[in-house]
Structure formats: structure tokens, C-alpha cells
């Protein structure tokens, strides 16, 4: 079972945090900080695994992937295969990339509801529900259409912060 999905930037700011077992918000933040401490001290070109048990408790494993300014982190138990979860991170990121054309941190910040939708189409209650990025995209687009039916749709542009200071 997948216990948590986290996205944080290289400064340790949380960009997405989804826990599949209930944890208090203090505990969530403590875990995010704990993992960040370890992740930020790791060199490039090392394995994608770190020891999670000392932070998350017994029977937990952690796989992460570092893309540009973001860490994508999945915590899970021994019922999952580590490399398969690493594939899953790749599928997640590829789907984000398809969705936002060259995804960057800002896309995730300003469209975090969309990130939630994508994740929910991929991981469901801690279990993987879909691994095909094109199937995930289909489902997400369908949802977007539904939303568009009641709202005018336009993705928040990447230069949102610039737009504000205008």
C-alpha cells in the first residue's frame, strides 16, 4: 500500500502532500521536514531509495525522484515493489508534463487542484488504480470538460505572479 505521496521543492516547501492513512497536520509537517532533511543532503547519481523506517515508522519504504526544483516522494509498505513505484513516479511526472506541456514548479503551485485530480486518477486509497498515462489523461480531460460546462475554462498562466504585479 502507498502510504503517502509528497512533492516538495528543493527549499523544503511542500507543493503536494497526500497521506493515505490519517495523520494530524503537525505529524504531516514533521514527516515532510524529516524527509527533506535527508533528501537535500543526498548527492546526485545515487540510488533513489532512502531509509524511511526511522522517520515514518516500521514497514515503510521510500522512493524519490528529483526533477529540476522538485522532489517527488512516495512512501509505501513492503507490499509494493520499489522499482515499480519508481516507474509510478515517472508516470506521474510524464502525465503532468503532458498536461502542462513542460511542467514546472509554478504549474504545480497554481494548479494544485489539477494535480490532485491527476493523482486521484492514478492512486486510489493507497492503491494504484491506473498506470497508463494516456488513460489518466483521458479521465482528467473528461473531468475538465465537465467543469468547463459550468465555468469558463482557462489554465492559470505560468506567469501568474508576473500577472499580479502588473
Amino acid at each position: 500500500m502507498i502510504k503517502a505521496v509528497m512533492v516538495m521543492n528543493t527549499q523544503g516547501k511542500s507543493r503536494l502532500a497526500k497521506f493515505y492513512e490519517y495523520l494530524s497536520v503537525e505529524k504531516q509537517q514533521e514527516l515532510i521536514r524529516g524527509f527533506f532533511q535527508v533528501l537535500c543532503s543526498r548527492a546526485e547519481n545515487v540510488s533513489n531509495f532512502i531509509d524511511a523506517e526511522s522517520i515514518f515508522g516500521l514497514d515503510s519504504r521510500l522512493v524519490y525522484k528529483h526533477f529540476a526544483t522538485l522532489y517527488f516522494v512516495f512512501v509505501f509498505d513492503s507490499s509494493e515493489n520499489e522499482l515499480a513505484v519508481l516507474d509510478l513516479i515517472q508516470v506521474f511526472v510524464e502525465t503532468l508534463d503532458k498536461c502542462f506541456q513542460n511542467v514546472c514548479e509554478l504549474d504545480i503551485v497554481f494548479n494544485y487542484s489539477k494535480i490532485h485530480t491527476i493523482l486521484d486518477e492514478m492512486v486510489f486509497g493507497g492503491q494504484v488504480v491506473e498506470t497508463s498515462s494516456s488513460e489518466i489523461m483521458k479521465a482528467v480531460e473528461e473531468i475538465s470538460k465537465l467543469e468547463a460546462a459550468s465555468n469558463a475554462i482557462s489554465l492559470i498562466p505560468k506567469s501568474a505572479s508576473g500577472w499580479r504585479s502588473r
Partner: protein
Amino acid sequence: MAMHGMRGLSIFISDIRNCQNKEQERLRVDKELGNIRNRFKKEKGLTPYDKKKYVWKMLYIYMLGYDVDFGHMEAVSLISAPKYPEKQVGYIVTSCLLNENHDFLRLAINTVRNDIIGQNETFQCLALTLVGNIGGREFAESLAPDVQKLLLSSSCRPLVRKKAALCLLRLFRKNPDVVNVDGWADRMTQLLDERDLGVLTSSMSLLVALVSNNHEAYWTCLPKCVKILERLARNQDVPQEYTYYGIPSPWLQVKTMRALQYFPTIEDPNTRRTLFEVLQWILMGTDVVKNVNKNNASHAVLFEALALVMHLDAEKEMMSQCVALLGKFIAVREPNIRYLGLENMTRMLIVADVQESIKRHQAQIITSLKDPDISICRRALDLLYGMCDITNAKDIVEELLQYLNSADFTMLEELSLKAAILAEKFAPDLSWYVDVILQLIEKAGDFISDDIWFHVVQFVTNNDDLQPYAAAKAKEYLDKPAVDEKMVKVCAYILGEYSHLLARRPGCSPKEIFSIIHEKLPSVSTTTIPLLLSAYAKILMHTQPPDQVLQNQIWTIFTKELRYESCIDAEIQQRAVEYFALSRKGAAVMDILGEMPKFPERQSSLIKKAEDAEADTAEQSALKLRAQQQPSNALVVTDQHPSNGEPLPVFVGQLSVVKAPNMNNTEDHSSTEQVLSQENGNLSQVDQQPPSADPLSDLLGPLAIEGPPGATVQYENSAVSGLESGPDVVDGSAIVPVEVGTNTIQPIGNIAVRFHALCLKDSGVLYEDPYIQIGIKAEWRAHQGRLVLFLGNKNTSPLVSVQALILPPAHLKMELSLVPDTIPPRAQVQCPLEVVNLRPSRDVAVLDFSYKFGTHMVNIKLRLPAVLNKFLQPLPVSAEEFFPQWRSLSGPPLKLQEVVRGVRPMALPEMANLLHSYRIAISPGLDPNPNNLVASTTFYSENTRAIVCLVRIETDPADRTQLRMTLASGDPTLTFELKEFIKEQLVSIPTVAQAPTPAPPAAPPTPQIPPNDPAALLTDLL
């Protein structure tokens, strides 16, 4: 998207981003929360759009790490909004902010149900997602049939059905009864024919959860899983969108192989063959390629295939192939594969017969220990620790010691602990052990727990020939300029006790030794000073004839110079006063200040600690697989019976030890304190209480390493009674045919056949009846074993009054952890059982197990497969090794010969296989006569340690019913027992054709009574 057009939300996010520091952020967040709270209060005029906007803001704030303790009602109420966007927000936010016990959730059940049974598929998806994320027991009870209907519906879209499958999984975890409906297993089997890979993937996850709980109900799914795997891996038959970097749905392949690992074996030979062909295909067909993602995916499949091969106990060739593959992996450049290679090699250690081939990779593993990636170092350390045995301990421990100099700080503690344990467990000689521990203390004193040095003291005290060496070493270390305080303690203790043995060596006069120790005094803490004072008193006492100068010097320390006589620390004061008074009595104190008595031999707490830690790692490997997917029913049980360390009264005094799980940390801690105080109070006690008069006094004496007094006394008590109460201890050969007696419950399967099967393999079912299944998984390592009993309740109501009692024969020390009184419905409880083999014997341990189901009281006595051959390790020998030993063991009682008649006729290779299955290695070609077999093995027990046994069997091709057997080993009992054991196997082979009820086991052809076993004599009379 939900927030498009929600300008306020974008502005809020930008504001947060522009905050310079955490304090500004907090102010901004507080302002926003206040605003939202106000708007919610004035509920009137709040449009669904407004609500949506605020709820998204709340979710954002929550993600930033602020508690949002209001607005839950608003989030929940959005669920019943008619329009999709509001409803969607309501569902998403509710599942993020609320937990399954939240009261508001109950309010939503009806709406959720309406969405699930409604016609709108997008609403169905939203509702299923909520239930799948936070659905609790109430949801399980009211929604399960609807969710099942969706999953099985042919008119539903795959998008809905795959979510229904996982939603059902969640509900099953909350209440296992949701799948207890007629024909559910058949429907599950049909689901595996699904062509849509999305639905199939989800269904496979559901199946994994179901089979992990009860594999028997789903055995019809097994061939389907093999078919799916064949279709994906072999035939590559998948739609394009499920091909990931050219690999057919690696995720589904992995899940399918996971599901297969929950079935204990595959009986159908065709299915088994097909599966092995596919696995072979995967093992052979995976290469390391350039593309990282492709590599990851293909190796995800490959590693899962390896795990499955291990689980299935494949043939030896396939296992060696796996080890060879892993050997390749641990040397590749790709760090992930190196990491997993090491991890899987560690798991592989529990597979019989591969240890030797793993050892061939030792050099590479040691290289990995020095990897810059600490994750990899840890795996390498685990593996080295696991593969260490008496043959390679020296190399491995010395590598670990060396690595201590350069290891990452966060690894030092584990590293030094492991080095200490290995040194203790496998020391080829005692002086080496002392060297290692002293080096460890020198290099990583801060990370060494006190029991490690206590144990060195114990070793040195108990081994007279070691004392001069240890004293010389202690002096050497203490001579160095900056010495760790622990080093001062251990060295001062050893020098105090044994430095007089060095007196004639240069630089070792009492005076010199004294000044070496005394130099350290200013730098040590108050807890160490008493130890130094004892050392002074002892040195003084050993100085014969008395040295006036030294005496004055020491007396001054006791009295004036440092004023210990009036020291505020009561311990130091007491010692100073006593030693001063005693040492003025001259030679009369010899008895009082003489050498410390020998310590009672017992298992070191260190090794015990290590074993407990290993229990965790073992669980991670094979055992964990069974437990991981379970809705942790076993935990529920433990909750009901808090392990307060109090064993069930029935056990006390009857069997070795009943150990409650996990009381170790506190125990160790208190033992440390206990030891110190005991040790401190010791000298004043000695004269009143001469050591070893009473077996218990040792326990109360100094350095009682074991544990708190209560636990220790009980341990010793029971161990003693276990050994001495001959007639009470049930002898294996007598109890064997225990019948079910008054039980009206019929066992399923033949108990004797199950037992014999388990004598040859390490996991399987020991007993089964309509209510319970008792499985066993065992790991054997030298003279120790760890069994886990899996007690599985097959019913929908609990089993109560569960009791398990181990009746160990005299040669086995067995500890069963606490067995819960109740096993909840459909739950499985795991009870670890530790076994230590003390000496060779063929007697068998018995599990006396009882439970109550409804009005039936069931009591069964089952033989436990902790038999002689489990303590053997095959040891192929060469002619150069064999013949000198064979010749040196000349004649009885070390070498016994017997002509055995009535042998079950079998061809020579068959006999060789038989011996091999009992872990006795054949050395072909040693005997010039082709009709003869020469074999050898190593036997492990606590008393004999590792001991080589040599076997020669001469057969007569003209008459296969007789043969001549010669056995030789360095221990007469072992020679006899092993001879009888092999004879039993050759004469009577248990076959499945036996009666379905537990048949009396084949009696040994010539029942031999071990001459000194009163229990056996007694049972023979009966």
C-alpha cells in the same frame, strides 16, 4: 479547473509566495482564515461558487501545514451540491481534511450512497474515491453490496469499475465480512478474465488483499494468475497504452507475481511448469540497457520474479541462477539495481543451499559497504551481517572494524553493534574476540552499549587461559594517551582482576599498573571511579610482599588526597571506606578481594537483542509477505492483550521461557542499571554469600547480564525445571501418536504426513481442521532456529481460550512468545518460537494446542518439526579433508558401524537425494567402490558447537534391502543419534498412502533408548 476564474484564490497563492518569511506567511494565513470563518458564519448569501473558492483556500492552507479546524461542515455540504465542480471540491476536500471517524462523515453516507447507485458515472467516481480514501466500518456495512454490483456490472465503464474494485478493497479492510458472500470467490476468478487492463490491475490488487487473508478460498484464481503472467511477459499481448518503455504493463506483472506469492505452493504440475517457464523467460530475458526508465521497469519485473522463485522453492539450478544474477546486479553501475541486488541477496540467505554461492560475492559486497550512497552501505551491512558464519567471521568483522574509521556518522551505532554481535557469535578464538571488542571500544566507544563490555569481562573471567592475554591487552590500550571512558572501565576492571598474572613482565609491576590506571582518574566521571577504586584495592591486595610506598599512595587516595572517604557520592564513599578498612587487615582479605567467581553460562543479552532485531528483518523478508496485506487483525489481538511482560501462568515452570514480545528496550535499559548497582554493591556482599552455593545467587551476583531480576529468576527457574524434571518432560518418541482424543473435530489432511513434509522443508501447514489452520515458517541458523506459528482462524466468529504449550525434549530450549487468548474472525496471528539446540538427540518437541469454538473444546498435540536434521549444514569435503579425519576417528564410541536390514529398496542416486534432503552432502567419487556413498555434514548445538560428521554407506547391488553404515564424529552421542536418525529414514519412508487420521508414526525399527534419558526409559515402560 475548479479554481479557474477564482481570482481570489490565485491572488491568495501569490500573496503567500511573496511572503518574505514564515511569520509573514502566518499573518497572511491567519487573515485569510479569519475572513473565511466570518463568511461562513454569515451563511446567508454564500453561493456555491463562494463556498468552493473558500474550501480550496482551506485545502491550500492545510497543505502549507496549518491546522484548519472549521469549515468541515461546509466541505461536507458541498458533496450534495447538484453541479459537478462544487460536488468535486466537496469530495476532494472532505477526503483530505476528515478522517474516517469524523462525525460529519456519517452525515454524508446517504448522499454518497445516492451518488454510487445513481446513473451519473462521474458522480459515481467521486463517491467511490471518497469511500476508497476514508471510508470506515459504517461505510463498509452500508455500501459494500452496491460497490460489488458496480465492479461486476457489465454495463459500467472500466473507469468506474476499476475504482469500485479498490473501493471494495478498502471496505474489506474495514470489515472482512464484506466478501463473505456466496460465490464471491468464483466471481473473483471471473474478474481475472477481464480484458481491460485498468480493471484487471485494480482487481489484482484486490485479489492480493484477499488471498493474503485466506488463500484457500481463492485457489481457483491461481491458474488464472499464471495465465495473465504468461500473456503479459511471454506473449507480450497488451494494448499499446499499457506498454511502458516497451515493457507490457510492468505494474500488473509485478502485482500478479505478488499475488502468486501468497499461495503456499502450486500443486498442479502443468501450472507449475508453465509458471516456471515464464519465470525462466523473465530471468533470462532481462538486460541492462541505457534508458534508465526502461531499466527500472524491466528490473521491477525481474526482482519480483526472483522473489517468486525464492518463494516457490525452485530447483537448485534455478536458485543458483538467481544468485548468479544477483551477483551480477551488485556489481553494476546503476545504483538502484545495486541496492536491490544487495537487498534481495539478503532475503535469499534464508533459502537453503545458496549460502555458499553467496559467499563467493563477499569481496564485491565489501566494496558496496564503502559505497558513497549510504542507502547502499546499509544494505551491504545487512547482507554481510546475515551471511556471516564461522568460516568468514574473521574477514567480515575485520572489514567492519576498518570501515568504522570512514563510515558515515549515522551508521556508526549499527555498524559497531553488528560487529560486536558477529564477533561474539562466531569468534574462532577467544583472544580474537577480546581484540575485536577492545578495538571497537577504541574506535566507537560512544556507540558501544555497556553490555558489550560486560560481556568481555564475563568471557575473560570464565576462561582462565585468556586472562593474562586480556590483562596485557588492557595495559596496552590504557597506555595510550586519550582513552575513551568505556575503555578505562573495562581495562581497569581487567587489570584489577588479572594484572598480577603479568607481574613478571617488564613494565607490569603493581606499581606501574597502578600508575597507568591512576593517570586516567582525573578524566573519568563518578560512575567510573568506583571501578578504579576496586582495581586499586585488588592491586594492593595482590602485591605480596606488601609494597609500603604503593600502599601509602593508595591509602592516601582512599582517605585524604581526594577525600573519597567523605565523598558526597555514597557509592564512592562506601568503597573508599571499606577498602581502606579491609586493606589494613593484610593477607586476611585475600578471600574477600580475591578473583570474582565465574559467571553462569547463559545466552548473552547482546545476541538476544540481535535475534530480536533479526525477527524484524526476517519478517521483512518472507514472513512479512504474509502479514503485509492483512487488515492487521493480529494487532487488534495484541491490543486486547497488552504485552505487559507477564507470561501466562500455565507456562511458568513448565517450559523454558515464555517471552512476551518486545519488552526488550526497557529491559536492556534496566539491566544496565541493574548491573551497575549490583556490581557496586558486590564487594560488601561476597563474604556473607559465598558464590555458587545456590544456583540463584549467581543471578543476583555481579554483572548479571541477562535482565531485570524478576525475569531472570524466572528464566533460570524454568530452564532448570525443564532440564531436570525428566518424567514431566514429554519425550518425543512417546508422545508421537497422540490422538485427537475426545475431540470431535476431524483434522483435514494427515497430520503425520504434514509433519514429515515439514521435516524436509521450512514452511507449510502443520495442522488444519474446519476451524483453524496452523502454519509454520522456520529459519535455521547453526544451532538456533526461529519458527513462526501462523494461527489462522478460518471462521467468521472468534476462536477463544486459545492456548499453546510447548513440551520441549531435554535437548531443546524453546521459547514461545505470548499466544493471544482469542483469535478474531478470519484473522491470523503470528507467534514466534525460538529454538536452541543444546545437544544431539532425536527426540521431538510437541505443541500442545487447544482452543474453543462454540461449545467444542479442541485439544491437539502436534509434533514440531524441530528435528535433528534442521541443525545440520551440508558440508561437501574433498578427499584430502575426508580421509585424515576418517582415520583419526577410530572405532567406537566415536565411530560406529552397523549392518541395517529391511531397508526400503532404492537406487543409489535416490538414496543420495534422500540424504541430501536431510542436509547431508554427498561427496561423489571419494569411495572407489561405485556402490558406496560417502557423505558429510556439520552438526550444530550449543554444547558441541559446530562438529563435522562423516558418513559411509556401503550397499549391495544384489540385495538392496540391506546395507552397512558407518558413522563418525567427534562426539559419541552425536555419532549414535545421527546413525539412528539416518537408519530411521532409510528403513521407513512416510508415504501419503497412510490413513487419513493421524497415524502412529513408523516406530524406529530397533527402538534405542538413549542410556541417560529417564524420560525415554519411563515411556518405554508405559
